[in-house]
């Protein structure tokens, strides 16, 4: 971001109030047929949270999401460091990773289903492939942009590769890597929920698809609201940490 925003807290409040007003207005225009008001949605969500089934679905999504995120971060860091440390590999693979990043990954879902079978492992794999590339790309650039003097210092002290990564490369690259993890977090969540929407028997994505076939607008609105709320608030938190890391 170029211009630092003034009074970010006040702006966020204005934005949230504005979004709720927009929602209420859309509800007044479209009506009961297709929308619910913010208040009705929150109340329905409150009731939903008192049922056991909801918590089972939520737990299922969270379980798949956590596993997918762990895999995405671990593999992304590994690929990023490997490519970042080797100039030619990094230069050759970066544009290829960028084009992989831009393909509609949802088309790969049938392949993943055929490989992993219908179940939680397919969801995890699908979430993970969304997150790996951004983590890898940010890590690659972070490692590549480390000041040469730091690496030279490490060489002078004759550090072995493991200590070099742990004591010098990783700490120097942390702010950029964190940005990658933040982006990876969002994409992994989207991937996991998408996977559930297409083929699953549990989870919030499944709940959402089920609600469409039942034309249950209350449920569609409540689950959508919950997903957006969760994604936006975690991302807001990560963004705050991210900015602090970048500005020292």
């Amino acid at each position, binding site marked *: 971001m170029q211009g630092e*925003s003034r009074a970010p807290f006040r*702006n966020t409040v204005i934005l949230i109030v504005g979004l709720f007003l927009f929602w209420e207005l859309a509800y007044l225009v479209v009506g009961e047929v297709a929308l619910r008001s913010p208040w009705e949605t929150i109340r329905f969500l409150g009731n939903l949270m008192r049922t056991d089934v909801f918590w089972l679905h939520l737990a299922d999504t969270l379980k798949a999401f956590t596993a997918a995120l762990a895999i995405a971060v671990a593999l992304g860091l590994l690929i990023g460091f490997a490519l970042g440390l080797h100039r030619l590999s990094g230069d*050759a693979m970066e544009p290829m990773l960028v*084009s992989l990043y831009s393909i509609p990954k949802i088309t790969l879902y049938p392949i993943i289903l055929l490989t992993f079978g219908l179940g939680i492992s397919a969801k995890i794999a699908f979430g993970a492939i969304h997150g790996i590339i951004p983590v890898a790309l940010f890590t690659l650039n972070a490692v590549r942009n480390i000041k040469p003097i730091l690496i030279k210092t490490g060489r002078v002290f004759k550090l072995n590769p493991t200590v070099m990564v742990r004591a010098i490369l990783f700490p120097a690259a942390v702010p950029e890597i964190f940005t990658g993890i933040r982006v990876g977090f969002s994409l992994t969540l989207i991937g996991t929920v998408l996977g559930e929407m297409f083929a699953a028997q549990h989870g919030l994505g499944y709940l959402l*698809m089920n609600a469409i076939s039942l034309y249950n607008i209350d449920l*569609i609105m409540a689950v959508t609201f919950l997903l957006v709320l969760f994604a936006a608030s975690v991302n807001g938190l990560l963004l705050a940490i991210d900015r602090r890391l970048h500005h020292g």
Partner: protein
Amino acid sequence: MSRLRIYQFAVIAGFILLLEALCLAGVIDKITMPPPHIIVRDLFRMLLAGRYFGDIGKSLANVLLAFGSAYVLGVITGTILHGYRTARDILDPLFATYYAIPVFAFYPLFIVIFGLGDGPQILIGFLLAIVAVIVTTLNGLDRVPPVLKKTARVNKLSPLQTALRITLPFCAPYLLTAAKLALAYAFIGVIGSEFIMARAGMGYEISYAYTNFDNATMYPLILLILLLSIAANSLLSHWERVLLARRGQK
């Protein structure tokens, strides 16, 4: 440069050969995936026979509609927003969080409101694409040197003239990046929503073929989508590099 190309070629060729070997050796069974040469053959047959041209055309038309509308509106919004500091500050948290929001979660809602047609699919593609365009345009406009703005003022250009003759041309590389992002997002949005729920389109045909265990249709179509999106991306990336090289920025 050529060493780089050899490396890239070796990676792609190695990957395809590995898949081919695994399929032929039976490590990957036929029900999971046909060998790559069969997929390519099926794709040629499919294209020569003209099958799925309707679906391909519909998907591409929707992608272009989503891309075009998001791009034009995004550049206009970005240009206007650049002049209003307060509005920009207020929207800033939205832009920063936007891509964390699962936009596909709104697809069911749009189907309920607009019905199961092209509208919701284009809208998802549009919504995914537009914010990237706005943010990239703002980013580019931030980098316009003050001397150019001063020149505009000295020549008493109207805001519209300033944007069209000075600031937007200066931002051309950014506008190209915006186009690249918008196209990728429009693709993801349209194909993804067809995949979740639709009556036609490439995404729909893939999910339909999957349900019917029709690998001879599914894999060629997946390959086609991958090739199309990678080709579009590479083309715009290439153009971007040429533009940057001409300006001596790379």
